[in-house]
């Protein structure tokens, strides 16, 4: 059989295959992996396992509840998680994994950034595709809800940091925190939008709030205080930036900051509610909706009119769409036609991420959007369109109607 793998890699594969067939017993119960959890660490006893049902023995020696999760290779999409691991009460958790690269992590008190993120490789052959459609649907919904909760959980502390600096008048620090604080929100924006008045309070732009007669609060109110417009600057609708607007007083900063934290806390509470759920079409339509956000709001640079951090929102929307797609990918791929569509979507996600990577990353920041030329914007727009077109077919394919 011809191979395109370099020799060393092929040799390594051969060795691990040998290991699998020769040295590892096939009974999963016999080789459970141990996970030592503290408030600040998450150590898995091995960084690899053969494909199939993998069992983790979770032992929390910390001071409060913890959570163990397994993320896909984008470090975002949750493929399995065990919540509410209490100190001193070891618990066993089994998850079915196909070959590939994953990441393990813990979440102290079930919220915030993943702790002890570590690569975890699953080797061998993929299990026979689960023919049980209901099981696939349940898995997609369960994992997407977990993702929404994890992002809402990361959002809160980031917003708290941003608001703390904003309220303290430390604008330089607040400016550095602004884009990153928005990322978890932009990844799950369709969820927030589903809660009616929450998205307007958190994420409305000034022109929209004015048009709808709403009290203007949220990220963009803070943004304009942090990037104070020049005297002759214009809003995106061509009106003067200073029309009915003045930089917030310290009292107003306290109010706007507290309001944003409260709204984000409410979002977290809503998605953490045990009755919170999403439907299959919510997931696939969420992926489509996030790309529409990019195509209409981010490409034009209207979203972050003063900070020009649009590309960070752009990337977060794409992350969110990619995760949502990943959750229903198996379901979409149950027919030949669906498999073709799914591979086209995946290809276009990769192409878009490659174009986006020319301008930075979510972690390191992006080129300010006002420095992105029209020709570059068109290249980004072309890549968005190339993805959005096949993605628009996803719901029909996932639902099979």
């Amino acid at each position, binding site marked *: 059989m011809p191979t395109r793998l370099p020799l060393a890699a092929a040799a390594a594969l051969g060795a691990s295959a040998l290991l699998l067939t020769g040295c590892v017993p096939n009974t999963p119960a016999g080789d459970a992996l141990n996970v030592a959890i503290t408030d600040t660490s998450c150590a898995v006893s091995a960084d690899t396992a053969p494909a199939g049902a993998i069992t983790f023995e979770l032992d929390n020696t910390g001071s409060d509840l913890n959570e163990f999760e397994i993320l896909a290779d984008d470090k975002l999409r949750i493929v399995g998680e065990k919540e509410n691991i209490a100190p001193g009460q070891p618990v066993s958790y089994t998850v079915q994994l196909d070959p590939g690269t994953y990441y393990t992590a813990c979440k102290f008190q079930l919220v915030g950034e993943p702790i002890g993120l570590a690569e975890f490789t699953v080797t061998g052959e993929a299990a026979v595709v689960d023919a049980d459609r209901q099981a696939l649907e349940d898995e997609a919904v369960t994992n997407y809800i977990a993702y929404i909760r994890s992002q809402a959980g990361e959002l809160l502390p980031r917003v708290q940091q941003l608001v703390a600096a904003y309220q303290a008048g430390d604008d330089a620090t607040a400016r550095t925190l602004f884009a990153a604080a928005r990322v978890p929100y932009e990844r799950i924006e369709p969820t927030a939008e589903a809660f009616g008045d929450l998205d307007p309070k958190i994420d409305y732009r000034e022109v929209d709030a004015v048009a709808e007669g709403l009290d203007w609060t949220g990220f963009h109110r803070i943004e304009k205080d942090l990037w104070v417009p020049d005297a002759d600057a214009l809003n995106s609708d061509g009106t003067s930036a200073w029309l009915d607007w003045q930089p917030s007083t310290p009292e107003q900063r306290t109010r706007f900051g507290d309001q944003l934290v409260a709204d984000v806390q409410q979002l977290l509470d809503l998605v953490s509610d045990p009755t919170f759920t999403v439907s299959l079409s919510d997931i696939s339509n969420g992926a489509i909706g996030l790309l529409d956000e990019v195509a209409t709001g981010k490409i034009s640079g209207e979203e972050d009119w003063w900070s020009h951090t649009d590309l960070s929102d752009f990337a977060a929307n794409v992350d969110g769409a990619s995760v949502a797609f990943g959750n229903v990918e198996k379901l979409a791929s149950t027919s030949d036609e669906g498999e073709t569509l799914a591979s086209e979507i995946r290809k*276009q996600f990769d192409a878009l991420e490659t174009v986006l990577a020319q301008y930075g990353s979510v972690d390191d920041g992006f080129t300010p959007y006002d420095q992105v030329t029209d020709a570059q914007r068109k290249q980004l727009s*072309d890549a968005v369109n190339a993805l959005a*077109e096949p993605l628009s*077919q996803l*719901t*029909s394919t996932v639902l099979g109607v």
Partner: protein
Amino acid sequence: MTASPPTPPGPDDGISRRGLLGLAAVGGAGLVVGGAAGGALAASVAGAASGSGSTTRYDFYGGHQAGITTPAQDRLHFAAFDLADGATRDELASLLADWTDAAARMTQGLEVGETGAVDGSPYAPPEDTGEALGLPPSGLTITFGFGPTLFETAEGVDRFGLADRRPPALEPLPRFTGDALDPARSGGDLCVQACADDPQVAVHAIRNLSRIAFGRASLRWSQLGFGRTSSTSTSQVTPRNLFGFKDGTANLKAEEPAEVAEHVWVSSEQGPDWMVGGSYLVARRIRMIIESWDRVQLAEQEDLVGRTKGEGGPLSGGTEFAPIDLDATDADGTPAIAADAHVRLAHPDVNGGIRLLRRGYNFVDGNDELGRLDAGLFFLSFQNDPARFVTVQRSLARDGLNEYLRHVGSAVFAIPAGVPEGGSIGDALLA
């Protein structure tokens, strides 16, 4: 489906925009014209009468592409596309095949795709965008072409292994006097000319082809046109351009097959083989400074053009179609047709006998920041060598009309021959 001669191309399960009843009506009363078939050229065009019959339907498949000698329809939507970064030769081939299939359907009045505008899944966007539902074919023709950059980019990159297929005649046009070209309105890897008697049908065609292209190619520039400024058949009256003058009186007409063969179609002697039966298209977006023009005295307007404004007869005498006498003089001995008159400089006698088949349209794209209409002529000409256009355009360097004209967009495309049913417009190029 009906007794009408052309077989609807593409899958037989296609759905009509009009439904079966509509199709039957077309079969009974509609005018069906095999316009693209080389052999049937004269007869087919003679049948097209006014071209305003909105049930007019032209074959897509045939020896030459439709939309060249086809009697000029009233409306235009023209689009230039660039291939996507990193697009492959296979993607180019698949795009041209998909475009061919969609174009064959739309020109017959059918919807794009198997499920069309309203018969697909309620959970998926419709295959066809739907704005032409219920509209007849409206004489729609769709004509495809390949720009020089498809073969080799300006930087000399051969993206699709086509550099050695580039016809030597297909080169970017040289710079002309009076050019004020905007790169964003010029060039392009591919072009699509959609002409129809109903603007909605022409726009529907470009919109759906653009959508099909996403991921493989994207719009570089596009142009809407109204009020054809040329007639390509003796059955059509000569229309007027935005200067208010009849335009294209001396144009090449479909009823002159020998002349069309001599001036328009690429011969086997000219080659290359894959271009035989094709042509070359020059597109120029010519802005007219009409506010200034409208202050010019009638006599001077006529002198600048070389024809009377009302009848359109040459200033050397006679009615519209009277031959132009370039040597005629007035009583005082001055030339009846001025040295810088447009008709003199564009005349075959001063251009080595060259005639172009023109197919231009008027445009008005809103107004500029000075409150002037952004109006003019979207010039389109077909010829079997772009050098013929270059000769005429260089002659026009002294044209007195230039004071009122700005050439702001420019492109040249190789127009391949037509394809038989089942073929793709890219077959000859990519063979």
